[in-house]
């Protein structure tokens, strides 16, 4: 019972947060000197009438607070409105979300599968050759900017011809067999996955190593060892379970990054995901699209934290009795 009360309370807290986030972002976007019609204004063949029509259509002739309320009203009703080019925001997002999810879930899955064991290994074999090598590699991974690494990968693709230069599918994708389609998508995914994997792996591995080291240094591990438990039991039964707790919070943040975390890499690889769409939308001050993505990001972040909290309650008996 306590548990459900806690969750519903957390969900109720979301509402004022969403309102504040939407207010701030709406006003910042609208008060910036970006004009979604700037390009049309400088087009000699566009008449004054057309411009006036566009201003009316985009509600630009109304005061900002009126624009905000009309946006908020339709948002509450579940209508995300239209982009400045007249396409449905919901359709645009639906086209892109699966692509981004495909990329980010693969990356997150791989990172965690590889990153956690590597972190544990590095901690257990602290200051051995293996740990030193992992330290160097992960330092490089953390230091290299993602866009630069992505460009290097693109050059690699052009020079060798082994991988396609960006995108997600080849132009004759629809004529391929199922296996052909699978291979085609995989080939397109290899390079962006390598980039994102390398970069997030490094962070995760270091984090896990640090957690593990801290736990290994604690009194209860010393006690377990003194008790004469085997090293395997000490590490897996006692140390790991305690070291994993902070990682769960991190997983919550990873969840929030599912939709937005890969934007830069997506842009360089011309990956048809949300990143490219939203970057363009921000540049053109396409308010409905930007607002929809910001709201989505906020909700994902809150949801991620909530999931992490719930997971923590399950794994950590100390938290179970605590009231929210």
């Amino acid at each position, binding site marked *: 019972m306590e548990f459900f009360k806690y969750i519903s309370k957390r969900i109720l807290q979301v509402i004022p947060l969403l309102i504040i986030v939407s207010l701030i972002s709406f006003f910042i976007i609208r008060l910036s000197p970006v004009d979604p019609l700037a390009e049309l204004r400088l087009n000699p*063949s566009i008449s004054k009438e057309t411009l006036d029509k566009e201003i009316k259509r985009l509600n630009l002739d109304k005061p900002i607070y009126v624009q905000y309320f009309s946006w908020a009203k339709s948002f509450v009703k579940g209508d995300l409105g239209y982009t400045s080019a007249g396409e449905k925001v919901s359709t645009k997002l639906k086209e892109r979300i699966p692509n981004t999810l495909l990329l980010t879930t693969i990356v997150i899955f791989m990172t965690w599968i590889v990153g956690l064991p590597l972190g544990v290994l590095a901690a257990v074999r602290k200051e051995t050759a293996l740990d030193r090598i992992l330290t160097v590699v992960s330092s490089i991974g953390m230091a290299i900017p993602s866009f630069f690494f992505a460009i290097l990968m693109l050059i690699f693709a052009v020079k060798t011809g082994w991988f*396609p230069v960006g*995108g997600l599918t080849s132009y004759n994708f629809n004529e391929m067999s199922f296996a052909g389609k699978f291979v085609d998508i995989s080939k397109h995914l290899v390079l962006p996955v390598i980039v994102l994997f390398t970069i997030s792996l490094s962070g995760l591995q270091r984090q896990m190593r640090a957690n593990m080291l801290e736990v290994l240094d604690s009194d209860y591990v010393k006690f377990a060892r003194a008790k004469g438990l085997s090293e395997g039991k000490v590490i897996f039964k006692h140390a790991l379970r305690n070291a994993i707790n902070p990682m769960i919070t991190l997983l919550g943040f990873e969840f929030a990054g599912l939709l937005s975390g890969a934007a830069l890499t997506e842009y360089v690889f011309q990956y048809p995901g949300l990143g490219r769409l939203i970057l363009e939308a921000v540049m053109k001050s396409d308010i409905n699209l930007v607002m929809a993505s910001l709201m989505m990001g906020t909700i994902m972040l809150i949801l991620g934290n909530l999931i992490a909290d719930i997971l923590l309650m399950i794994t950590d008996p100390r938290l179970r009795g605590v009231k929210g």
Partner: protein
Amino acid sequence: MRADVPEKLPDKFVNQELKNIDYPDDEKNVTINGVDYLQSQAPVGKFGGELVISTIGEGPKTFNPCNTKDATSSSMAGLMYDGLLTTNPRSGKVVPLLAKSFEIDENDYTIHLRHGVKWSDGKPITADDVMYTFEEIVFKGFGNPSTMDAMMMDGKLPELVKIDDYTVKFTTPRPFAPFLRQLTYPIVPKHYFKPYSDKGESVFNAFLSPDTPPKTIVSNGAFRLKEYVAAQRVVFERNPNYYKINLKGEKLPYLNKLVYMIVGDTNNEILKFEAKEVDVLSLRGSNVARYKLKEPDSDYTIYNLGPDTGTLFLIINLNNRKDRNGKPYVNPTKHSWFANRDFRAAIDWALDRKNMVQNIASGVAEPLFTAESLNSIYLNNYIKGHPCDPNVSRESLTKAGFVNKDGILYDNDGNRVEFDLYTNAGNLEREALGVMIKQDLEDLGMKVNFKPVEFNSLVNKLTNTHDWDMAIMGLTGSPLEPHDGKNVWTSKGSLHLFNMRPSDYKVDDRLDWEKEIDDIFREGALKLSFEERKPLYDRYQTIIYNQKPIIYLYSPTRITAIRKKFKNIFPTPLSGLIYNLDEIYVE
């Protein structure tokens, strides 16, 4: 800087004309079994294959040809929908396309349609479709209303009558030269479009959005939509009902598929060309030299299509009006300089265009002195331009009462000559131009504050707040119809940037030469023949050249590479490289 390529192109390449190309004759009408085909006179090619092109940006916003507002959407919708008339790619003349022929008698334009030609779903194309397109879409201002605006004469639209199933007649209220070219507007199928247009404009504008199932789309162009994948590509396939045939009587187009890759920026486009994922690449700046060097042992050919319609210029604010609070838009002291023709001439003569072309455009551009672009059929060939000569500038300044003391220029009231020069930040070409212009003008003793600002802020300054001194800008002209520039040149135009008047401005404070240009544009639209119109538009270019409210700098040259396996490539300065997609084939 790369060292393995020449810094600048040999002049020979830049100026090379398309003189070795053996163009086919113009297309002819041929009637076979009662069907009026249009016959291509290009060499007979092979059917099959595909051409992959790239388009920069986020891809098409709509496939509704009546509602396109950006270049990508309109070129794609243009593939799918043909208009009654079209522009001859070589001569620029208006010639029949979907129409079989047309006659002009005073203000009457009679259009004869082809018998037996069909929409992609097999239904015949008749006068009803033409009537529908103009009466229920264009004249109502649905979608993009610019064609309606262009057809409007003194607030009146032309009349349209259906004579029989294959003949329609337009009557304009008075002679109006730009009218004929408006008939290149795409014709759409009444049976497919009407259910949507009947539901009002907002439904019509959302109609044929990119996610429309391709199979349901009814079109009449050479290609029909096969697939749209958001942010990746648009695939077209040949329309088997197309009415153009080759010399053997086989139905065109040759290509099975036409693929547009949607790429985010030019860098990605180049990578895709290098990786052989796209077949055509438009080259800019220093890339030209690199690709030209690799051309002999490559699988592509490079064509120089001559200067494009884009113009880069320095514009001077002549506005002497005041804003709502009574504050002048331009500081009155500065205005007194800008309003002085000798001051503007001094600036013009000080600018080293040759240097700009060589160092900023890597030689891939031509100096520009005229308001019409260099590939315009109305270009005033008597304006030869002038070299850069700071001595002429100094003479003009002295004549205008300016004094140079120790390298610093003062006006005759002792004010230091100092002004702001704007351009849009992020555009490397314009930023480099700004630096060079600043240098040239500071040699005359002026102080130039070069301020690149965000594009939207610049547009806002130019069109709305008017608080700027000079700016480096570019606009795209029309190579065929100078009247399209009326918004820029007529004194009440919405893009009359150098002397913007509010839309409700009543006072007639036009400068003498502004008056003359107004008259020219009014008269030029009334005259129908090229011979009558040419002297008028020559005159307006002379006025701009003499008065220099806008100082033109250069026009970029279009250089495009295409893989050698594509044949029937007949590039023209007017229409570019691959305008004849229905005739191009793969060897």
